């Protein structure tokens, strides 16, 4: 399968006051289309930084980042925003839903950036909520949902615009084991049945087992790559 994510000699440095910290050192990885990759490693290893680069939220200090056929490190801020809207769905550890909006309004947010009609947007939102099994909770606000339900809404929001890639940052980090497993099964289903490429950062080895590949980072470098059954 062709690589949907390809990083070559990527360096990422941050400046904290007078100090410059290199978080990623000459990192090169490739992720195939349709893959489900778990990014693992200790705190400070650069997992989230790598995820941010793949998701187009940040730019490398050096090196090339190719995602979904686009050299995204060379895009302007405006181009990058459009690119994210078209190609990437984000799932965060703490769901990051808009507390004042209902589930369906939250899911609709990415579609506001498209030219779809109101009726079409509604249709797509219902479909996305149905995929995550929350069609009947459409009118509920985040505060009225459990953690697992809120994360499902967040996944529906990530899916609704039919992105090329799903980027998940500790999606089960705030959930109990049973709920976490439900969410991971859902991600696995999206990967297997809907062909979504997923890159997921996790600390949890059990969560990583749901992925088809695991990439381990330590001190900004790739330690090993393993294929999981």
């Amino acid at each position, binding site marked *: 399968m062709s690589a949907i994510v390809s990083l070559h000699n990527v360096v990422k440095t941050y400046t904290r006051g007078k100090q410059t910290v290199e978080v990623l050192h000459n990192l090169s990885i490739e992720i195939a289309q349709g893959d489900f990759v778990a990014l693992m490693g200790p705190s400070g290893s650069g997992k989230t930084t790598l995820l*941010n680069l793949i*998701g187009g*939220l*940040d730019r490398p200090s050096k090196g090339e980042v190719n995602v979904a056929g686009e050299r995204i490190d060379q895009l302007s*801020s*405006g181009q990058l*925003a*459009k690119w*994210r*809207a*078209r190609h990437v769905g*984000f799932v*965060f550890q703490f769901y*990051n839903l*808009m*507390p*004042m*909006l209902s589930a369906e*309004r939250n899911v609709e*947010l*990415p579609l*506001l*950036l498209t030219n779809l009609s*109101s009726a079409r*947007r509604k249709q797509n939102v219902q479909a996305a909520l149905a995929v995550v099994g929350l069609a009947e909770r459409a009118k509920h606000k985040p505060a009225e949902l459990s953690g697992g339900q809120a994360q499902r809404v967040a996944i529906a*929001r990530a899916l609704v615009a039919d992105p090329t890639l799903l980027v998940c940052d500790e999606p089960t980090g705030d959930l109990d084991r049973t709920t976490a497993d439900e969410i991971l099964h859902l991600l696995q289903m999206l990967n297997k049945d809907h062909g979504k490429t997923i890159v997921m950062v996790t600390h949890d080895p059990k969560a990583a087992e749901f992925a088809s590949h695991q990439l381990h980072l330590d001190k900004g470098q790739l330690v090993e790559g393993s294929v999981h059954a």
Partner: protein
Amino acid sequence: MKYFPLLWATLWRKKARTIFTLCVIVIAFLLFGMLQGVNSAFNQAVERANVNRLVTTSSIALTENLPYADMTQIEALPGVARVSHATWFGAYYQDPKNFVFSFPVEPEREFSVFPELKLPKEQLDAFIHTRTGAVIGADLARKYGWKIGDRVPLHSTIWTKPDNTSDWTFDVVGIYENPDDRSQESAFFFNYSYFDEARAFGKGKIGWYTVQVKDPTQSAQVAIAVDKLFANSPDETKTETEKEFQQAFLKQIGDINLIVTYILIGVFFALLFATGNTMMQSVRERIPELAVLKTLGFSDTGMLALVLSESILLCVLAAFLGLFAAWMMFPALKDYLGVVKMPTQVIVEGIVVALLLAFITGIFPAWRAKRLDIVEALRG
């Protein structure tokens, strides 16, 4: 329109804070509507002043009366078509709150110099021939339910009779209309001859003359001629156009325009801080949410527009409510100021001020949202 639910929900994210801010802006715009409305209505009345008419008053003060005998001399001047006169009666009906704009006049002269006041001929004849007759504006008649044939008692705060009473009784013989300006239908005219005979003091005097000129382009020369006529006499005059007279009359109350401007500047300066603070706070506590929107693909400019729109929605909504309340309450001022309705121009000015307020208070938080670094913001 598709962003409206997002904007609306964001606005009500902190209900109490939004309601308080909304109330502050509503009150400010209510004040704006009332004050600017009065100011505008007065200015409009001044602008509507007739160019054919001059007003001659005492050069000492508006409250100094002039000899009635001066009228013949003024009327004899070249360029003068007709002269009428009036005197401030300063009366109320039953209760001091029920102030009535009342003036003793000579019927024929009054309705000839002020042709915009429409009175049926038979009513004018009745006015001329009824010593205690009075002609009242249609609006005044409606207000107190007065009709032709009614006897109306007024209490003057200035003019007493020889028996030391200040109560005057009049017979309503006519009701005039002013189809071009309904706000000018609240006066109470009665016969000068009755007034002059019955008053205890000031006999043979009138308050001011209204001089109708034959050619408006000659107004300045006629005004000079009138004042020259009485120069170095015990009753020197000051003649000015009706517009200048009305402006001077309003200045007796105070420079309304200046007072209104100062009050409104103060109010809006305070409002700027109140609304600006709300917007800054609102954006500050939503940094992670704004970062999520950017993550989803909202552009920097889109974020700027979103936060600015929020500010516009808040300010324009509140301004609309405040101006609407002012518009509803405005007719209540009619008794005091003779103004019937708030000029539309005030609504337009109010909305422009609201947009300006929204821009000034919204631009800094909007700029902050525009420049928000996603990674930093998500990290918290």
